[in-house]
């Protein structure tokens, strides 16, 4: 008996991760603000900047419940480190 598969074959191949920086001091960090917990994100930004000396760029998602637009993902990928989500 011949049946048809209900799924697509896995098409993605994992990309190698960027090399982790030895320290966050002076690192460029993309902080993706998912627009759900703004006070927490602001506090995190302050800690990263003032305590660790990181250069933080805050990228605000239009919605915390939808994927980031491709342009935002590209922007985040250009940094040494990216914080891409904060769970409540």
């Amino acid at each position, binding site marked *: 008996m011949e049946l*048809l598969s209900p799924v697509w074959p896995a098409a993605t191949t994992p990309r190698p991760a960027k090399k982790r920086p030895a320290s966050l001091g002076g690192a460029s960090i993309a902080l993706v603000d998912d627009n759900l917990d703004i006070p927490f994100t602001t506090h995190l930004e302050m800690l990263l900047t003032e305590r660790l000396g990181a250069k933080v760029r805050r990228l605000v998602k239009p919605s915390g*419940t*939808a994927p980031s637009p491709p342009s935002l993902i590209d922007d985040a990928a250009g940094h040494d480190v990216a914080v891409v989500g904060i769970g409540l």
Partner: protein
Amino acid sequence: MDLVSERLNVDDYDEAVELFYQRRWTDGLPIVLPTRRRVEAMIAAVKRDPQESLGPVPPKGGPATIEKLAINAVMGGCLPEHFPVVIAAMQAMMEPAHNLNGVLQTTHMCVSLVIVNGPVARRLGFNSRDGVFGNGYRANAAVGRAVRLALWNLGGAFPWDTDKATLSHPGEYAFCIAEEEEDNPWRPLHVERGCPEGSDAVTVFACEAPHSVFCYGTPEEMLHVLADSMCSLGNNNVHVLGQTLVTLNPLNAEEFARRGWSKPDIRQYLWEHARRPLAQVRACGVVHEQFRRMERDAGRYPHRYDVDNPTTRLPVTPTPDDIHIVVAGGRSYFAAVLPGWGGFGGFAVTRRIEWSS
């Protein structure tokens, strides 16, 4: 017919069902086997290119081609004549306003309900009367399950993985009703939402499972109970607005209409009375408050609401039109409220069902 899906050779039904379990291609229940003959019959019923895609299904983005949808519709128990309803439901769910990506992955328990309207409901045997949210009707069960299987196999949001629903609800297996249009004094849902009289359509809305409302008596008495049920402190609407659904049974609707109440009248009344004083809502905690401020900052509260004034009575939706009303069920004492996800999405989207000539 040119089909591109991987072909699987199995010896018998038992082996096939176990294979689908092993590969995690089913929702936990056995399936109807997607043989080429059945899948081709499904596609022939809509006369569309099997490789036409409705778009990527979130979160993993598998294309919702007519072929893949047909395979999943067979698995769910659909007949070919059900397939246009499945396609319309998928198209509606994939509209941005529904935010399917969020609905499928949120920690909230909402599931996209499919509401069928138009002559198609009677013609294909959808239940709109007694036990409407329950079992026993092939059209409701098969269309409902086909949609869920398509989301499962193409979107790939699995529990304990990217489907983060804390509890979810049984509508994850199938969540499909029809509106009762004959025993109903008002215009049906899809006509209210812009479809022509006599047309066929589906409306999708992401919501909790139905919550029973003991709803019998005068319009004022029924509204009193409905309003209270809609604004329980545990539901998202109280904290982050969004949309909500009220299901009235035909006897409820008849009584309202007999006393001169239209659906807009009911919406307005419920919007004004299904409210909680801010002081009570504040007592729920700081996280709730933060979400409420987010709604305010996003401009979703009407400007006249002072969300810092403890005497303010907060509505459950931004406007009366965000309270959806459907007539369904038996002629009895019970209605239902189905709160939504909140302001994050899952909003109602209506889509005409396209029939091939």
